[in-house]
């Protein structure tokens, strides 16, 4: 949660900086902002629901987490985990778009952001796999937000493409440093 808040702080100055740049970046920022607010609200609802569930079940939870008693708690835990990852992806995207708006698409920061996004999306796939193995349905997520959790061929292709993009950004950063060095 703390990490998520620091991401938010990181994202919003970037948003402000990108605003005068152009329509495309503004549109991307607005849409990402809407999704980010939705995800943060869902995180808050999910956290409250988790506290309520744990309080309601109380001592009934003193059994193995694989016991059916744990089902609603497990669903919320996996859902919250997935939401945190989604939130991290959106935070990184906002920061990257902010950098593009400032004309710093190939800053070294963007290389690591791209890698973070790839790892987070991979995390979502792994989370989906673990949830499926444990028999926890997280597909619909919290508050009706589809989190895209789950191990799918398309998801794995996306992870690979994101890692390739990270490499492309590294190449761009190298070119940028070269260009600056030669000026």
């Amino acid at each position: 949660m703390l990490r998520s808040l620091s991401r938010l702080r990181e994202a919003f100055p970037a948003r402000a900086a990108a605003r005068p740049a152009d329509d495309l970046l503004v549109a991307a920022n607005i849409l990402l902002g809407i999704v980010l607010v939705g995800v943060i609200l869902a995180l808050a609802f999910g956290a409250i629901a988790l506290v309520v569930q744990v309080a309601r079940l109380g001592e009934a939870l003193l059994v193995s987490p694989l016991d059916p008693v744990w089902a609603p708690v497990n669903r919320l835990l996996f859902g919250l985990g997935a939401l945190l990852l989604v939130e991290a992806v959106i935070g990184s995207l906002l920061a990257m778009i902010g950098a593009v708006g400032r004309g710093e698409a190939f800053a070294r920061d963007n290389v690591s952001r791209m890698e973070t996004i790839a790892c987070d999306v991979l995390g979502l796939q792994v989370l989906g796999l673990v949830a499926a193995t444990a028999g926890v349905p997280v597909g619909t997520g919290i508050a009706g937000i589809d989190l895209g959790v789950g191990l799918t061929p398309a998801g794995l292709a996306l992870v690979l493409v994101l890692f390739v993009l990270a490499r492309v950004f590294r190449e761009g950063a190298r070119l940028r440093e070269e260009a600056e060095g030669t000026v």
Partner: protein
Amino acid sequence: MRDPLLAAARMALGFSMAAMAFVAVSSIALAPLVYGWRDAVLARVVAPGATPPPEAIWAIVAVLLLTGAGAALGFLFFRHLYRIVATVGEGDPFVPANAERLRAMGWIVVAVHLIVVPLAAIGAWLQTTMERFHANISVSLGGLLLALVLFVLARVFREGTRLRAEVEGTV
């Protein structure tokens, strides 16, 4: 392909292309067959004893054709991505063609969403008309987000192409 990351990405994208091509070809090929055997098809999808509305067959054909068109666009999307990954393998991702490919991919995502709107509407209608027809199609905010990110990436690639030209010009 010695690089394992690029080899894996190419394999995954090749698989996606094949899956999309299969869906596109089979659903478009199925459309005339479904129309040809319309009585048998309709008898299977409605509850026993119920009579299906005659326009239902056209709705099913439309669903098949729209699905085929969507899958064909999906094939093009993955083919663009495959070619972009190939240029990374060749050691030079910042060619003007890649910016164009990313822009085209952004428009493909927009087009797929335009296809999904009537598809979801027809699917919902079929579901209310027939008991054994299940539709699970919806327009997603995530998809529109993807289109925007692709357009931004296209811009980033153009910037990369400019930088590369600059570096080459100064050597």
